[in-house]
């Protein structure tokens, strides 16, 4: 399935309108409505370790403005956040903290690894004693964005990709859930 959902007809709301005598009736699958709500309401955790955090702030700023997609409700507490954007290097001392933050988040939760450091330990920091070589050694990642640091557009693209992934039912959690239901 196409992750971005391009193969389907682009719609604001899942479901279709059936014209009947007294007006339209909206029919839609519950799953799709749930995914629609979840994908359109990704609240990020205010979490940044280094340089990429500044580009994350740029995305919040007026020029890039991720509030258009409804991402602007950045929560400082992991309990209320939906997506954790790992913006920057994760070092050995930080890894347990990151894990804990992830565990503290309520399901469903998504992870975006932003920048080379979060993907693989960085363009420079691979040869050190303290850097974790990629945040996916610590927590599962849904979307990776390359770059050092990635442009704000890239982060927007990643968030939109994540939306597409949720809508298509292809996030890690959704796949896991389905495999329980249809083994």
């Amino acid at each position: 399935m196409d992750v971005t959902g391009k193969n389907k007809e682009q719609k604001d709301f899942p479901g279709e309108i059936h014209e009947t005598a007294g007006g339209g009736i909206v029919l839609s699958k519950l799953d799709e409505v749930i995914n629609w709500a979840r994908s359109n309401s990704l609240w990020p955790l205010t979490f940044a370790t280094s340089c990429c955090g500044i580009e994350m702030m740029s995305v919040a700023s007026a020029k890039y403005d991720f509030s258009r997609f409804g991402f602007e409700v950045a929560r400082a507490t992991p309990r209320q956040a939906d997506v954790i954007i790992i913006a920057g290097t994760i070092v050995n001392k930080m890894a347990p903290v990151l894990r804990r933050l992830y565990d503290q988040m309520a399901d469903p939760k998504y992870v975006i690894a932003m920048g080379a450091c979060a993907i693989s330990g960085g363009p420079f920091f691979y040869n050190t004693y303290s850097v974790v070589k990629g945040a996916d050694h610590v927590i599962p990642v849904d979307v990776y964005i390359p770059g050092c640091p990635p442009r704000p557009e890239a982060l927007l693209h990643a968030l939109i990709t994540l939306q597409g992934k949720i809508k298509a039912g292809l996030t890690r959690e959704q796949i896991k859930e389905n495999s329980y239901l249809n083994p």
Partner: protein
Amino acid sequence: MFSLEGITTVIHEWLNNHFSPTLALLTEFILVGLAAIALFALLGLGLVWMERKVAAVMQIRLGPNRVGPKGIFQTSADTLKLLLKEGLVPDGADKFLFNLAPLVVMIVAMLILAPIAFAKNLQIWDINIGVLYLSAISSLSVIGIFMAGWASNNKYSLLGAMRSGAQIVSYELSAGLSVLSIVVMTGSLSIRDIILSQQNGWWIFKAHIPALIAFVIFIIAVTAETNRAPFDMAEAESELTAGFHTEYSGMRFALFFLAEYINIFIVCAVGATLFFGGWMPLHIGHWQGFNQFMDYIPSSIWFLGKTLGLIFLIMWFRWTFPRLRIDQLLNLEWKYLLPISMFNLLLMTIIAIMGWHF
């Protein structure tokens, strides 16, 4: 003239004609309850959307615009997501109180709705001590916040709850005194009487500068009472991460979130009722022509317009002012607002006794 009164009367009569009075009353109870809940949901969605749009305008941005036209379904998506999100209860938490706290906050917000007059003759409960009832119930919300802070077993939450307690208890005083000054003018505690007394002009115009002072104090005090910036000490995102609701997630957090906006609506509605005549159209003395012209605008529009204006004011505060520090907050109340409002009440009383108002 279009009026909501007609609808309520029709329903009332239809029910009484078809059922026994007891059953009719019960049905009305249920209907009112459902209406109140629906109003809650609508208000929550609408006000959150409004807040995000207001913020966007202040911050030279666009705000939500992808989900539905102008992003109006953004908040629906958020609410649905919060409903479906896992509601975590921390291990060390006092589970009973932890679950109870959002409900308390919500119930309190619902209770205050009762005496508010939404339009001409559209009032859930026209209680003769309406204003007193409002003051009494609104101070209960601090219990919910305390519960949340204590039960979370989180030090940030505890600090937030402590701050909130100090804040709400103190700002209650000036809010109460500024409300009293209007009561002095009207001579009645009933919301209905207060609105009717503004038939020939709103109190903010009729009672000269003291009413203006009372209004300013009222707005400051209720901003503090609803824990809104610049008085959002209980939440204080950059200090206490999320204050008293740090440990809350999913639906329980949504209830806090919703209650905040309902509270804003209610205090603004009370402000509009006391100082701007509630649903009373803008009347000026005995200018018959002008007054009649104003009457053509439905009373519900008047009420909503005034309330939304005040809500906008409170949102404007939030997006421009930095937060106060806890001791400055208490200083402001005890050293400035309280003495001023006491003196102001005295002044208002003199005006009322001497009949110097219009």
